[in-house]
């Protein structure tokens, strides 16, 4: 029997059991749609995480002090005061560290800022004039404090956009931090990105003033470095590492009393987290595709049992075992492929509807679509083999007797 005719016979077999065929394809449909949609959602969230992290600045490095060990308990990174203002000055060395553009120490505390009857509990950072460049930030109003403000322990403050609007403060306003009056000299441009902490709810003051009032004398929690460009971040990392090892007199890099973290390491961590989540969701979806495949096998077994008489008749009239096997394989794989195609359509509908009604993004790429359809066809073929072989093995006599 020619392949074309076997195909027509198979299709007629499907058409003769319409409801059953539709229900079988549903299993495959949902499996394929689930795979494509979850991978699409995973892709979209990966993209969004990437762009958010990129907006935090990928030419930034953060140095934290080594952790302290007190009474056998390992403290968190930065809990030991191993960083000093001397390190900040050292890192600003243009000869020893040509790829470092800007350096700024940061002491971070949470404090209540008061402006008359309004107050805001915000992050207060003590830093130097390099803060703006090191953090890739800019001002919307006023000026940033200078090195001389740091030297003079000036009571000046630069506010984040959110903090300024909460306090109703503008350039020239007087606000109280730790019961000390500060003059607002600048307002930061909003970053529009929340990141890990709210980048717009903060106040930056000279580190000298901060050490007097909040952090404690000589304290430097961390140092933020900006490399000259995103491509020089690797060499900037090495320069900072070498300089600090030298000035801290450490010969074995493994016992360094500081840690350097780059934004790009956050990026890769976040990427691997979303990749893992996508993989997890896709595996669950793949299992539903497998269940759909078992559904195909189930229905095909029922079909073979129910059509034993037909199989016997066809054999009596001259169908070879191969003809019968092919007919049922074609029926099984057609159900799967049709289910797969409808699954693709469903996934695209999901891809259009879901982003409109929710905040979840769906980004459908060609690769998962092709893979899902191919797997669906393969599943139909593999799960069709057993029922088809059973049909082919039926002897014409037992098959004819069954009616």
């Amino acid at each position: 029997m020619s392949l074309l005719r076997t195909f027509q016979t198979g299709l007629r077999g499907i058409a003769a059991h319409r409801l059953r065929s539709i229900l079988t394809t549903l299993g495959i449909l949902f499996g394929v749609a689930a795979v494509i949609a979850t991978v699409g959602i995973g892709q979209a969230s990966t993209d969004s995480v990437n762009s958010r992290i990129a907006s935090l600045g990928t030419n930034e490095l953060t140095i934290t002090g080594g952790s302290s060990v007190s009474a056998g308990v390992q403290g968190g990174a930065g809990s030991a005061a191993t960083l000093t203002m001397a390190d900040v000055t050292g890192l600003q060395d243009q000869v020893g560290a040509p790829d470092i553009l800007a350096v700024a120490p940061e002491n971070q505390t949470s404090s209540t800022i008061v402006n008359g009857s309004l107050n805001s509990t915000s992050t207060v950072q003590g830093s130097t004039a390099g803060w703006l460049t090191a953090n890739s930030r800019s001002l919307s109003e006023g000026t940033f404090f200078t090195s001389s403000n740091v030297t003079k322990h000036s009571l000046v403050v630069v506010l984040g956009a959110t903090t300024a609007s909460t306090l109703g403060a503008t350039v020239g306003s007087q606000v109280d931090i730790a019961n000390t009056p500060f003059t607002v000299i600048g307002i930061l441009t909003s970053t529009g990105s929340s990141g890990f902490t709210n980048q717009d709810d903060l106040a930056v003051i000279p580190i000298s003033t901060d050490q007097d009032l909040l952090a404690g004398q000589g304290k430097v929690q961390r140092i933020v470095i900006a490399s000259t460009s995103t491509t020089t971040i690797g060499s900037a990392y090495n320069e900072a590492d070498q300089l600090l090892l030298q000035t801290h007199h450490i010969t074995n890099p493994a016992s360094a009393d500081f840690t350097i973290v780059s934004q790009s390491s956050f990026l890769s961590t976040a990427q691997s987290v979303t990749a893992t989540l996508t993989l997890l969701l896709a595996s669950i979806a793949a299992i539903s595709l497998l269940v759909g495949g078992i559904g195909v096998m189930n229905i095909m077994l029922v079909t073979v049992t129910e059509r034993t008489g037909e199989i016997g008749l066809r054999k009596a009239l001259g169908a070879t075992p191969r003809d019968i096997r092919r007919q049922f394989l074609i029926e099984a794989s057609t159900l799967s492929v049709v289910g797969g195609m409808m699954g693709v359509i469903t996934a695209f509908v999901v891809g259009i509807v879901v982003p409109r009604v929710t905040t979840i993004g769906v980004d459908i790429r060609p690769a998962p679509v092709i893979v899902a359809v191919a797997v669906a066809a393969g599943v139909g073929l593999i799960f069709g083999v057993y029922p088809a072989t059973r049909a082919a093995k039926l002897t014409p006599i037992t098959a004819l007797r069954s009616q």
Partner: protein
Amino acid sequence: MAGALVDIRDVSKVYGMGDVAVHALDKVSLTIEAGEFVAVMGPSGSGKSTLMHILGCLDVPTSGQYLFAGERVETMGEAQLADLRNRRIGFVFQQFQLLNSLPAWRNVELPLLYRTATDRRAMAVDVLGRVGLGDRVEHRPTELSGGQQQRVAIARALVTNPDMVLADEPTGNLDSASSREILEMLVELHASGRTVILITHDPSVAAVASRQCVMRDGHLYEAVAA
């Protein structure tokens, strides 16, 4: 003897093994010349169904030799048997064995699907016309009477122009009027030169054949012409 269409020698068919072995056929020999009309009678359990399966190449004997038109059947594999059935034998069954999901002409077309044939619809419609169902081509089996259904089955048996038509209790499910119609049709087939084998338990049905055989307990006896 060399020209015989069917030549069965010492054919046995045993079902099961050891103590439970059933000898459905016990050293049966039968020769049928081309153009004969043979009836095989016998009560149920006599082995006539087994004989019909062997004759129709639906099954192979446990021992013995079967030559069909000079071809050795007992050594054939499933695919070869399927091909032989398709080319040379037309079947008519008691239960009609029509596919209810297909119209009459599609049912008649079935054996043509398993061989190289063009213009299958024209052939099917032509044969349906010859059995008097030219106006029922598109009807489904459920829309036809029992007699009409059996005529569709006869058309299906004839569409491949077989050497032999094997009818297994063709009137078993029909009223007497339809039965007469079907038997007349078999007589006509024989008259037109075709070999017909009729399996039945009913002597009055067997009477239409020109030669009668009787199966009993796995043995075949030639009935003396009345």
